[in-house]
């Protein structure tokens, strides 16, 4: 108020022809409401035309501080107003600089104020701008142009470079309500707003609404994201608490290929979806009342989801997922084909009923190779940010030759099938009750006590017991190019733990099955088994004898490994002083293979097995 009075006084002076050439007013302190001005100096130069110079060393207004403020009003030609000042919030340490140069219109309250060369600079901020403001009854209309602006916060988490854009605002006060209509056009420049990054402009935001007290109402707003889609929304938010009182948002046509890297990926952090490629279309609709989602609907149309780490892929995904806080809904999800951990998936249709935070479905069939995973009695619930589910699962026979090809394993014969009465998932851990029986190599492999932790995540963990019975060693050794052995094999791999699909702990024991059957071992297999035992191992027959016989009879063979901390503690079927027996011969010539390495590093053992298999493969190629 006081400042206005001084101005009025000065203007009055200027218009009357006083015989004074300059007027200077100084004040130590001027206080008015929340404003305190210190060391102010007003100089009116009345020679020729008039200029007004107003200087203040320090101004405090609410939580804003200014120092070295200069205002220069020049009536000599076209009236202009120039000001510059240092500015800061009282709580800040560093000062920013603001400057502006405006043409003063003849009619101050009705005509446009044109301000160019506006600049706001601080340590990490440089905002050159131009401004046009037209006062209107109880409001104003403003145009702001930002030219190649840069800013960054101290941590560099919110920053823009070469930002050029345009903002128009029309505002009008009616009673206690401020009505506005604004449009923001981000033309060019890059922005990083942790964790989002926009490489370029082309985006627009239009919003019309009102502000009454702390309540911001948007009657109608549109966010156009270049190449991604248009989001229309309206609602009400408390600007003090940021609580959404009401929101309706509609995104009818989202381009997934563009939206995924721009909007989704930055939020997917360490989840399994963080390194995928998406395309296709999606539609999203959501309504919120009192900060609580009331309904939403997600639709996917011919979407493809491809994990770049090749852990999973789903093609031609179509989904219709409505959800309501108040009512049960039916959701559907289908894909044409895909793969999960290299296992090919066939066409699948999933239907389920969703009731707030729980889901039930009588059955889901997931075709895999020539068989299918049949899930039934499925129920899932989302409680306290965690998923819990249980279901019954069965694997109808899958051909092992196909499965081994899919898993890039040597071709195995037989079929695999399984029946799991109960699969539960709780606290990120998948547990199975019951057994999975695989019929392989004319024998059986039974997996039980299977549990898994984040199978698709960064460090998948698996634990299980594996029991092998009566595998045909003939086809086993042929499959893995080990050198021929005739006979049957039993195995018990108990307490097996895999981390990143690599064994880290187990009590494994492989040995010839009990019973009467043909037991023959080839010269090559003897050599290979010896080399598994390491440098110290030796076949207890002379090389010369080995050379004469292509195969030998054996009575029993076996090897076990107790794996702890990357070290395998080895033993055989019998102990000998300083070693153990791996193959115990029978008949003439009797052959005995001994092992002397009591402990072997796991990676060393794996290398030895690889060398044996690769060595033999080469031999066959020759």
């Amino acid at each position: 108020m006081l400042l206005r009075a001084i101005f009025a006084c000065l203007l009055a002076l200027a218009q009357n022809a006083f015989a004074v050439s300059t007027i200077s007013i100084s004040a130590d302190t001027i206080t008015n409401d929340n404003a305190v001005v210190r060391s102010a100096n007003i100089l009116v130069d009345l020679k020729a035309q008039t200029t007004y110079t107003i200087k203040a060393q320090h101004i405090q207004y609410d939580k804003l501080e200014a120092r070295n403020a200069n205002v220069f009003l020049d009536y000599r030609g076209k009236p202009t107003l120039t000001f510059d000042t240092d500015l800061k919030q009282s709580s800040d340490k560093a000062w920013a600089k603001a400057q502006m140069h405006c043409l003063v219109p003849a009619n101050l309250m009705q005509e446009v104020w044109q301000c160019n060369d506006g600049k706001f600079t601080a340590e990490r901020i440089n905002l050159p701008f131009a401004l046009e403001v037209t006062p209107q009854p109880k409001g104003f209309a403003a145009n702001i142009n930002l030219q190649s602006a840069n800013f960054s916060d101290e941590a560099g988490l919110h920053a823009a470079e070469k930002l050029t854009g345009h903002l128009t605002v029309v505002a009008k006060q009616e009673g206690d309500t401020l009505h506005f209509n604004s449009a923001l056009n981000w033309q060019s420049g890059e922005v990083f707003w942790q964790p989002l990054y926009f490489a370029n402009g082309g985006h627009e935001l239009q919003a019309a609404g009102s502000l009454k007290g702390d309540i911001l109402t948007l009657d109608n707003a549109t966010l156009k994201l270049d190449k991604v889609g248009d989001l229309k929304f309206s609602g009400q938010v408390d600007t003090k608490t940021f609580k959404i009182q009401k929101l309706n948002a509609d995104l009818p046509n989202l381009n997934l290929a563009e939206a995924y890297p721009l909007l989704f990926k930055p939020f997917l952090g360490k989840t399994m979806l963080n390194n995928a490629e998406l395309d296709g279309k999606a539609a999203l609709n959501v309504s919120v009342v009192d900060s609580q989602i009331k309904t939403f609907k997600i639709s996917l149309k011919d979407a493809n989801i491809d994990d770049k780490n090749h852990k999973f892929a789903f093609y031609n995904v179509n989904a219709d997922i409505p959800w309501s806080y108040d009512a049960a809904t039916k959701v559907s999800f289908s894909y044409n084909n895909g793969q999960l951990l290299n296992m090919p998936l066939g066409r699948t249709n999933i239907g389920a009923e969703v009731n707030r935070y729980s889901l039930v479905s009588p059955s889901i069939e997931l075709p895999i190779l020539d068989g299918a995973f049949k899930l039934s009695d499925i129920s899932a619930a989302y409680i306290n940010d965690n998923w819990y589910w249980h279901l019954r699962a069965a694997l109808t026979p899958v051909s092992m030759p196909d499965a081994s090809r899919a898993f890039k394993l040597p071709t195995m014969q037989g079929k695999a099938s399984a029946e799991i009465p109960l699969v539960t998932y709780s606290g990120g851990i998948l547990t199975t009750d019951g057994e999975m029986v695989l019929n392989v190599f004319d024998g059986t492999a039974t997996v039980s006590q299977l549990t898994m932790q984040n199978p698709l995540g960064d460090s998948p963990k698996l634990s299980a017991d594996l029991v092998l019975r009566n595998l045909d060693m003939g086809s086993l050794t042929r499959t893995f190019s080990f050198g021929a052995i005739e006979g049957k094999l039993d195995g018990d791999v108990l307490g097996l733990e895999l981390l990143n699909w690599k064994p880290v702990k187990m009590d494994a024991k492989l040995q010839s099955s009990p019973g009467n059957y043909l037991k023959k071992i080839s010269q090559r297999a003897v050599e290979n088994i010896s080399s598994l035992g390491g440098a110290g191992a030796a076949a207890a027959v002379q090389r010369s004898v080995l050379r004469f016989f292509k195969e030998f009879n054996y009575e029993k063979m076996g090897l076990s490994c107790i794996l702890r901390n990357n070290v395998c503690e080895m033993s055989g079927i019998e102990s000998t002083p300083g070693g153990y027996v791996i193959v115990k011969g029978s008949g003439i010539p009797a052959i005995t293979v001994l092992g002397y390495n009591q402990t072997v590093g796991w990676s060393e053992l794996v290398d030895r097995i690889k060398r044996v298999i690769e060595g033999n493969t080469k031999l066959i190629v020759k």
Partner: protein
Amino acid sequence: MKKFLLSLLVIVSIFTANWVAAAADLEVNTPAISALKASMQARHSQLGPFYSSGAVGLTKDAFIAIKDATAVPLKDRGGFNSLVSAENADRTNLYKEIATANGHPEWQGDIQNTFAGRWIDKAQSGWFYQSGGGWVKK
């Protein structure tokens, strides 16, 4: 005399036992530790340029911290931030796992302190590390 010798022996053995226990094996290897080391090794090639440019530095508590994000172009900044937090998460787990593998989870803090010095010793010249209240270029 015999009694004295026996008690001396007991005392000596207690001290020896303590002395052995007090030296943590920092090179201890478990599957979890080797998985963490492999993950950090794989990340190191990505972090290398950021150490050299001074965007990131070694902290005195054995972590890494963003020193000057503006040295990283805007388009790489999101990835850079995630690299730093992933590295620090691995480091926390590494210290914890080494303490656990030594049979003394309560040693985590001491192990972390020892690593702080090790990381700085191993750092290439030109990299930044925290010393006193500020950053020092090695």
